[in-house]
């Protein structure tokens, strides 16, 4: 296959393409800062994202990361600290997909908006950071990539400079972010102190060799602080506080971007670090407790708090924000369910969920973007009877809602039920409790998701509502997302295989 001829550094192409696009947009911006040729800018961004997506898919198909014994190319490590394997590619794909979707959607959303190039380049930069996070396998690169993803995000959230909500969101996001990254770095320093390494596999080696025995407490605290960092990125309790405001205040496409791609990126580093650096048994002997316990607790608390808080929201965007916290809780099961002997089933399920989530949640937020574009308002009541005026978009919304609720016949069903299945399959009491929590929360989530469906489909339309146009970009993005959400139900096989294989490889 063609991959063989490519130089090794090309393995990072998905991320590099993003970076290149970002730079290109920067250059463009500096040439004509006032330019508002939306089609060009959005086109470039989307194009870049799509190319990156294509390359990532191509690599996956070409067998990059697949163990050589399985006839694959094996994982490539162009630079010390950046590895390209199935896991990396899988999440690069997610990031690319979401980026492409929101780039297309922003075409309409940013209409009549200044400094567009800036916006797009920031998006692409953040995307680059996220792709990097997917590939990073050293705490150094992880931290850098994480910051590379975070810093543009702060700016993006606050990009509506004259919108108090946006600014407030940016502020909160940033402050909590600063705090969290401080904690994260401190955690890194402690881990480094305990093991003397920042490269994940070396850390693992040290721990397994038992050379760090004297620093159990230090390491434990460090690990916990790392968890804090991930929890922040994935908007998990107790580091979730920024999320509701940030998602609510930010421009809807950015909310979609953060809640889907950024969350996924957060998870990939978590997966990477904990599967590579901290082998369960050795670590347990060292710190005296399974770090999975932390994730069990986080998972339960996060999904419960997210769903419960979402149940009685009046602002649709905020409801989605909380639901996104709830879904972080679901995905955390992927880490909570890891066991010494495998657990790739549940981790794979979590990865599937993140991919599907990339479509359905992005789509949902983009519908909000559409609503904001129409200016129909933000609460459930404002959405009443939209289906009468925009049947297609509302049909898509129904798909997203029920898919988020995990009801067939939508892809959300698979991932969520595989998570459920995996959780039960672990067979430990803790995971049984998690599964129980999942049931309770699903029931609750059914309530508020169907509430939105009720608003747009069942309630009578508001009398004084003007005609609603059909912005091409937003519609395109939403419909693509919806179609994918449905189509994935049938075509779930490849994804399930890719995810479980990646998980298995990571755990191996």
């Amino acid at each position, binding site marked *: 296959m063609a991959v063989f001829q490519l130089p090794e550094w090309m393995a990072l192409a998905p991320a590099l393409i993003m970076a290149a696009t970002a730079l290109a947009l920067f250059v463009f911006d500096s040439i004509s800062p006032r330019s508002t040729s939306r089609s060009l800018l959005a086109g470039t961004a989307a194009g870049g994202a799509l190319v990156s997506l294509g390359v990532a898919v191509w690599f996956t198909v070409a067998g990059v990361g697949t163990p050589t014994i399985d006839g694959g190319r094996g994982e490539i490590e162009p630079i010390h600290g950046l590895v390209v394997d199935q896991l990396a590619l899988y999440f690069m794909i997610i990031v690319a997909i979401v980026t492409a979707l929101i780039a297309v959607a922003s075409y309409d959303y940013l209409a009549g908006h200044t400094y567009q190039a800036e916006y797009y380049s920031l998006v692409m930069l953040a995307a680059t950071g996220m792709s990097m996070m997917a590939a990073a396998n050293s705490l150094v690169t992880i931290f850098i990539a994480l910051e590379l993803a975070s810093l543009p995000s702060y700016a993006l959230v606050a990009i509506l400079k004259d919108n108090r909500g946006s600014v407030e969101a940016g502020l909160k996001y940033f402050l*909590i972010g600063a705090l969290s990254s401080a904690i994260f770095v401190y955690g890194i320093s402690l881990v480094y102190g305990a093991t003397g390494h920042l490269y994940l596999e070396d850390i693992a080696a040290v721990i397994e060799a038992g050379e760090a025995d004297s620093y*159990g407490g230090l390491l*434990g605290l460090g690990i916990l602080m790392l968890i804090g960092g991930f929890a922040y990125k994935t908007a998990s309790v*107790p580091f979730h*506080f920024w999320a*509701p405001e940030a998602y609510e205040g930010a421009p809807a496409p950015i909310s979609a971007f953060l809640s889907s791609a950024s969350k996924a990126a957060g998870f990939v580093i978590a997966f990477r670090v904990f599967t590579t650096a901290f082998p369960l048994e050795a670590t347990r002997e060292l710190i*005296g407790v399974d770090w999975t316990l*932390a994730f069990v607790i986080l998972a339960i608390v996060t999904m419960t708090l997210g769903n419960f808080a979402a*149940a*009685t929201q009046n602002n649709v965007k905020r409801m989605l924000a909380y639901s996104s916290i709830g879904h972080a809780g679901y995905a955390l099961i992927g880490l909570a369910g890891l066991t010494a002997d495998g657990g790739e089933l549940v981790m794979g399920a979590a990865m599937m969920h993140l991919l599907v989530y990339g479509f359905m949640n992005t789509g949902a937020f983009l519908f909000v973007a559409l609503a904001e574009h129409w200016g129909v308002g933000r609460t459930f009541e404002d959405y009443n009877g939209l289906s009468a005026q925009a049947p297609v978009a509302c049909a898509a919304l129904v798909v997203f809602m029920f898919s988020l609720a995990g009801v067939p016949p939508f892809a959300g069903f698979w991932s969520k039920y595989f998570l459920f299945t995996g959780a039960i399959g672990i067979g430990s009491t803790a995971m049984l409790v998690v599964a129980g929590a999942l049931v309770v929360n699903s029931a609750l989530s059914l309530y508020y998701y169907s509430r939105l469906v009720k608003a747009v489909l069942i309630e009578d339309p508001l009398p004084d509502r003007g005609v609603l146009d059909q912005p091409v970009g937003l519609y395109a993005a939403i419909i693509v997302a919806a179609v994918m959400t449905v189509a994935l139900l049938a075509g779930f096989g490849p994804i399930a295989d890719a995810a479980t294989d990646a998980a298995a490889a990571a755990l191996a």
Partner: protein
Amino acid sequence: MAGTGTFSYAPAIALFPLVAFVVALVFGKYMPKKGAIAGIFATAGSLLLSLVMFAAVAGGEVYHETLYEWTSGDITSQVGAEEIEFTFGILLDPLSTLMLVIVSLVALLVHVFSLGYMNAEGETGLPRYYAELGLFTFSMLAFVFADNLLMAFMFFELVGLCSYLLIGFWFRTRSAPSAAKKAFLVTRFGDYFFLIGVVAIAATFGTVAFAGDDSFVTAAETAINDGTQLFGFDARTWVTITGLLVLGGVIGKSAQFPLHTWLPDAMEGPTTVSALIHAATMVAAGVYLVARMFGYYALSPTALAIIAFVGGFTALFAATMGVVKDDVKQVLAYSTISQYGYMMLGLGVGGYVAGVFHLMNHAFFKALLFLGAGAVIILMHHEQDMWKMGGLKDKAPVTYYTFLAGALALAGIIPFSGFWSKDEILYDALIVGLEEPVILAAYAMGLVAVFFTGFYTFRMVFLTFHGEPRSEAAEDPHPVGWAVKVPLITLGILATVVGLANLAPIAKLLSIDITFLEFWLDGEYGAIEGLTYHEYHETVPFEEGYISSETVTMLIGAGVSLGLALAGAFTAHTLYNVPEPSRHMTKLGGAYTVLRSNYYQDEFQVWLAEGVTQPIARAADRFDRTVIDGTVNGVSSISLFGSSRVKRIQTGIVTNYAALLVAGFIGLLLVLGLYGGWF
């Protein structure tokens, strides 16, 4: 079996009316006479075929054929049968053919009468009427020749449906639908036990056939002889239980105490319907069923005794109520209940022949009386209150004399048909009663009832036809046509002479063989193994005793009952056969009100429905809405409340977030630390 040639037409007996039903329902609107013609032809055809079958049986042939398998399957019955078949089949033996003739004859006559009663009166909805009549006739005939219990039950239910529909024929009134509902519900209550009985018998013996070696009767007999345990009971007890369960249906349909209350209300239906369904045929279905599976009851003295006692009690009970009614149809209704009580009494004491005999006679004279009443109602311009009648004797001689014949038969005055059968019943009851005190009590009640019967019958006759007209309607009655007269005359003759079929007393006195019906039922001419009088008689476990000699006993019995009947008639004569009869209610004193209100039976049942069931239902409903549904809604409201609280931690102040974040982090640290024993 021989004679299938003729018998192969047997199904048509029932199918003709079915066709009539469809025709009348679909095309009735466009037909002359609105479908009556179809009905008349159909019933005539049925009658013809029935007579053919009758002749064939008389020729010594019988017919027992399974026509159609409804379903079949594996079971594990108590007596070890591995498989059971539920079928539709025809059983033509003396009993069923006799009944077929009776039913189809009465049905035909009623159809004809309807021409005068319904068509002439310009009723609306006639197609519906004739269709329902057709459906009824079909179901009734099918019930009669059913060869197994399940089939019997099914058509038993169907006649119930038709009864419901026909009682409610005048559905635009308030009373008719209510009466129809009551009729169906009360009988349904009986059928509930009947159905349990059917299920139980089927599950016990793995068969529901009436006749043949694989009949449940035979199976029960063997079980009793082998002393098998059935569902934890010894065989005879179980037979008694199941028998009584089936009896539930009988009591409902034949309007025996305590499920008799529907019949008087059923008089809301057209009089023709009352004549056909609520006097001659459907009500007979119950008694017929007992006769049909008499072999089974014969196995259980307890069941028989209960049948006899219920019969005797009902006979008296209903008769007393008949005494005080003003509506001519009401009187007839109570007399019907009473008469079926006699039949039950007869069967209960093992007087199989007597019971069937009375069944036949009653079919004719009661149909006659009802049709007569119908004629009177025409005469009276739809006035049914006897106190508004009077003096019709001369104005409508045909009606009068036929009615009189019926009355004499009903009262049991020699030599009219009623006398012979009723006397035979009482005789059988007496001879058994001399050994069995319970039966003696039943006999006593039956005997007393004779007096009342005579009384209310002639009270009715006198009030209706004698004396001076008591209303202008009675002054110039509406004339009646041939369609009315022909059936009356036919039935009148029958009511008079049909008693000749079984002159048991005469036969005993002169010791000549003229008890034809007995021979008939005993299979002298042809019968199916096991379904004959003497076999029943052998199975029936009752001793029989005599006062000095059989003949003396018979004469005493006959004399007493005849005397009482005449006494009743005479009392009525003295009280009511005067130009200006008065109600004489004071003579009865307090009893009068009790009787007028039917011993508060209806009140009691209404109380059961509205005083007991309804409150329970409402309570259940309240419980359902509050407790059960409340729990469901409670869960959701609780979680929503929780949600509204949970989201409060998002205070919007970033400093709090930082604090909470750190707190949460420390909490996590503590948990893990405690687990890991870091400190």
